[in-house]
């Protein structure tokens, strides 16, 4: 990832630093460490845990996700498109009198309108979840760290990225350690 602020940090082996990570023993420790990182003014950092930690959004100072708005707008548009299409088919595309009912009667269009709305909502929910999270992303510097891979099992990790304006290898490491972080180490790009 391109570095936007300040200088480029390098490890003793000369590799560009992506960030600094620390392990935490329990969800409670992670939660309180996240509050500390938030209060210290970090912006480009993240908490990694095998499950979403309850209440971590506030502890990290995250704003509400705008995903429901996107999903709602596209889902309702899908329903509208579905309805309009059926109406067009019944009145213009292939106008056929069925059971003596008016061609454009709206009532029989409701089930399919509903289904199309649900279909659009479901696709948008999954795809916008991926888009908001910049996934799929099959490569990530953290994934080279064996310690990090155990997050998917039972570990909790906080990683501060080097591009954060407040990042400083020593001060950030000290802060993570003071927040009960274990195994603080640099992550290579």
């Amino acid at each position, binding site marked *: 990832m391109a570095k936007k602020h300040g200088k480029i940090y390098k490890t003793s082996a000369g590799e560009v630093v992506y960030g600094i990570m620390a392990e935490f023993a329990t969800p409670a420790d992670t939660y309180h460490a996240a509050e500390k990182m938030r209060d210290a003014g970090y912006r480009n950092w993240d908490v990694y845990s095998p499950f979403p930690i309850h209440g971590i959004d506030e502890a990290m100072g995250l704003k509400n996700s705008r995903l429901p708005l996107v999903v709602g707008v596209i889902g309702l548009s899908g329903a509208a498109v579905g309805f309009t299409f059926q109406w067009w088919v019944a009145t213009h595309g292939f106008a056929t009198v069925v059971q003596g009912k008016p061609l454009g009667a709206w009532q029989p269009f409701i089930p399919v309108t509903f289904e199309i709305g649900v279909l659009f909502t479901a696709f948008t929910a999954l795809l916008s979840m991926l888009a*908001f999270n910049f996934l799929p992303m099959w490569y990530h510097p953290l994934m080279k760290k064996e310690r990090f891979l155990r997050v998917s099992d039972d570990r909790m990790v906080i990683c501060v990225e080097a591009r954060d304006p407040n990042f400083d290898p020593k001060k950030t490491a000290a802060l993570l350690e003071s927040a009960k972080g274990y195994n603080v180490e640099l992550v290579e790009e």
Partner: protein
Amino acid sequence: MSAIHPDEINAGRLTGAITLDRPQVIDERTGDGTLIDDPAVRAPLVLNNRSLHDISNIVCGYVEDKPGGWWLVMLGLTAAIAGIGTLMIAYLLITGVGVWGLNNRVDWAWDITNFVFWIGIGHAGTLISAILCILKQKWRTGINRAAEAMTIFAVICAGTFPGIHVGRIWFIWMVFPIPDSMGIWPNFKSPLLWDVFAVSTYFTVSLLFWYMGMIPDLATLRDRAVIRLKAAASGPTVLPFIKLRVDQLRAWIYGFLALGWRFSNRHWQNYEKAYLLLAGVSTPLVLSVHSIVSFDFATSVLPGWHTTIFPPYFVAGAIFGGFAMVLLLMIPARELYPNMKDLLTLRHLENMAKIILVTGSMVGFAYTMEFFIAWYSGNKYEADVFMWNRATPPWINPRGAPYWWCYWTMIFCNVISPQAFWFRACRTSPLMIFVISIFVTIGMWFERFVIIVTSIHRAFIPGQWGMFYPTPVDILTFVGTCGIFLFLFLLFLKFLPAFAMSEIKNVTPQASPHEHH
């Protein structure tokens, strides 16, 4: 849990130095620690104080370890049955629907019975994954993944029947609104077309929901494979003469499917929102699907079909039959797989038995109501269908119904047998639950058969009366779909995470950030 590093906890537990500190109350009769009635004790969702690491090990073990010998035997057997079913379908398509026992009187029989039967079974999965999610029923985490898988496989079996019953399969594209040079569009005012949309939407949404729920667990499988790859220079290979390591293949395939999920809490935030939205739309969807299936019948003017009670009655019946199928699959799996009883406890089974009791009683109420309204409405045709085409055996009155035994099988299996679940001993005995689930599954198949065939086998004038007898092709096609269903489920158990690990971990006591010592 105190603030000890997970490594130390794992090491301590292995040497016996640490025992996790939650006392368990074990039910004396069943030996299960989840059946606690004491309101002061919160019943655990996972037994034996499993740590997060244990949960990963147990669930990933089903994928990573060699399965028991039974698995391969069953896979071969179900594959053979599925193959016979496929041959029957091929025979039908080559020859025509005449190979089934359909005739001019009874032109819908096993095909649509099987369709409604399978689609109904699917409903349990969505109920567990969506409705119980919205109702914050934490116990759903022990069962939702397998139930969702079952849903998808059941809908695959269901979708087969309307597809092949049209006879001329090459015209099936006409049910979809595809622009064509003839300028013909489908009739959107037909419930049969609503059905096409309902079932295809249901399948697609269930698949998306299932897949999205699996992304974190697939990432766990990926990471474990990568850790093993790094830990050892060599390991088991795909085949003796192919040098590719199994773990490398796992890292690629699960890694591809996990889309690079890295358990970030910024990601989890969007993920949880999306998951909740999917649950939110799946809830009305699952109710709509079987309602729309019931419209296929209810909007006709046929006595026995033309009733407004059908949508709720079908939905209750679908959940009823679906839970029975979940139990039929999971009770043996629980016995066959190591440690599965810790994740899928007797309390899960008891809860599902309660749902079977509730929905079974709702179905029983609907049967009674149909009968009552047939009499109370004063509609002679309606009353005749129930009295003479369904309930009365011909050995009581010669006017009686040749299909009486189907009707009474249905009543016994669906209304009477689940009443055993009023007794706690029955609700907490896996064997008893298994037996009743078999009854329920049989009963729900007969329910659809009774609704469809007994309503149409005697039309308004006696000249239109006739019987339906299944041919071997009818029977083997249905048996074949059972094979397809079980075959797919066995593959699922072996190759995908059978439990929602991240969700189970989230409801364990040690996952709470507020438990700070």
